[in-house]
């Protein structure tokens, strides 16, 4: 794929990065449209963090090239870093300083005038519910509060693109949900492009308009979660009941519209190749002695799609 002239925040063309004999990124080509939350999904060690380092111009690629906000990552890293915000693997906060001092430092780095700096700090800390604790040393804060502060820092200078490397990793469910909700609200109110890496599929499903799935440095799929669903699996029917015998399952598997059948306890998942009525399938099951209690038509979660993509690749 060549680098086309589009309204893309990020354009990556055949990007490859080796660390000695290890290929961390393998010919990645991708476009990230402006103004959306883009999810970059992959298991640990799949090359997500390396991609962010390359896009920020912190590392040079072994092969290929990338543009961020129209700037070449190798030649114009300074311009990229001036226009983007980043929350990397670690929150990167000065824990012995107050929350306000942490933001003050990054405000000075981005040369925000004193008045604007103060009002922006107040605006962000208020939005994240941290304003009352602004004088506390960060070391006393919970991990969730630290992550929120780190996100506020990334947004401080109103960047048009923000890189968030697993922003909810290591947080408990409550803190992760709070961070996720704040992120969704900020993405909407600030209108920034967010490049979000995660291996939390629920997070990606909730926040991202487009997702890319990466494994061992190679891109497996990219698109809207619904597009990926269509590409990897059809509709799904959950049947709850009793008597799911092997004969009944074999009958179902023999039907041309059925792609796969999974049974667990009193729950049967039927994956269909195309959207069709399920009445003939239910009749088949009842005829085979199954007692059907409930039928739920739904679609595969992003997590299931992710696992399917991983299985296909393996």
């Amino acid at each position, binding site marked *: 794929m060549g680098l086309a002239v589009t309204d893309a925040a990020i354009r990556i063309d055949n990007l490859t990065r080796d660390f000695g004999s290890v290929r961390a990124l393998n010919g990645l080509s991708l476009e990230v449209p402006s103004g959306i939350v883009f999810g970059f999904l992959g298991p640990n060690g799949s090359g997500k963090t390396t991609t962010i*380092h390359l896009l*920020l*111009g*912190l*590392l*040079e690629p072994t092969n290929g090239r990338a543009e961020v906000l129209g700037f070449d990552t190798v030649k114009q*890293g*300074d311009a990229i*870093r*001036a226009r983007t915000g*980043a*929350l*990397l*693997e*670690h*929150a*990167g*906060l*000065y*824990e*012995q*300083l107050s929350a306000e*001092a942490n933001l003050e*430092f*990054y405000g*000075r*780095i*981005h*040369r925000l005038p004193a008045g604007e700096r103060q009002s922006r700090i107040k605006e962000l800390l208020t939005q994240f519910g941290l304003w009352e604790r602004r004088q506390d040393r960060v070391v006393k804060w919970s991990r969730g509060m630290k992550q929120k502060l*780190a996100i506020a820092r990334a947004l401080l200078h109103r960047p048009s693109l923000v*890189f968030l490397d697993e922003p909810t990793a290591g947080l408990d469910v409550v803190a992760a949900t709070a961070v996720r909700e704040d992120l969704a609200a900020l993405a909407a109110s600030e209108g920034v492009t967010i490049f979000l890496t995660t291996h939390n599929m629920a997070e990606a499903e909730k926040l991202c308009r487009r997702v890319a799935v990466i494994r061992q440095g190679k891109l497996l799929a990219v698109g809207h979660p619904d597009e990926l669903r269509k590409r990897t699996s059809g509709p799904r029917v959950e049947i709850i009941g009793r008597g799911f015998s092997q004969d009944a399952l074999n009958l179902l598997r023999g039907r041309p519209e059925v792609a796969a059948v999974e049974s667990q306890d009193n729950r049967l998942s039927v994956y269909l190749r195309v959207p069709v009525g399920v009445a003939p399938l239910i009749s088949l099951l009842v005829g085979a002695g199954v007692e059907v209690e409930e039928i739920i038509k739904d679609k595969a979660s992003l997590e299931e799609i992710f696992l399917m993509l991983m299985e296909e690749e393996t």
Partner: protein
Amino acid sequence: MIADIRTVMWKERKSLFRQQGSRVRILLTLLIPMIMVAIWFPWQMGTDWVEGYESLFSVLAPMMMVLLTVPDSFAGERERHTLSTLLASRLPDRAIFFGKLAVSIGLGFGMMIIVLLLSLVTVNIVHWDGHVMLYSYRVVLVDLAFSLILSVLIASAGVLISLRASTVQDAQQMLGAAVMVPPMVIGVVLLALHEQIAGVWGDLDIIYVVLIVMAVLVVACAGLLAAAMARFQRARLILS
């Protein structure tokens, strides 16, 4: 660039000595050399302290200050996982490098001035002979120049060591050894060869000896500073 250096200095001034226990450790470590060079040596050396170049011993204080603060500033940034975020900002490598260095060297230089003043007070109190004793301008210039050159030398070595050390403590220990061992070796060599040296340098005015030593240190300082600058680059730091 100057504005960026000042920004880094602002942060360094606020965060240095704020790590758990480091303020107490640094103050205690500085206390002994401070007492030695501000009270004990001038007390023992008397008027020689202000009239000769004995006050050059004062450089021990800024050396200790730099030795303690540079590893905290450079290795500490990595140990506390704040370096990669700093590197992802718009700050140029040189601004981070010089901003951090400037605070350590500035603190050392300030300490040198305090020690020179305190030791002057000590000499005047202990060896009072009816009139106020003062350093000659030449002694003050040599003392301050040596303080600055040695501070930059140790700071540059400190950067190189800090970028390889895994923790602040490791970096401080390695830098301590690097700073202490060469003068000890030179001292042993000078003692062993003192007769030959006296034969060659015997007639030389002490100021020329001081200037020659200073010139050698400046060359070493320039080399180490260039090496530290070359090593302090984003692409290398992000992998460390």
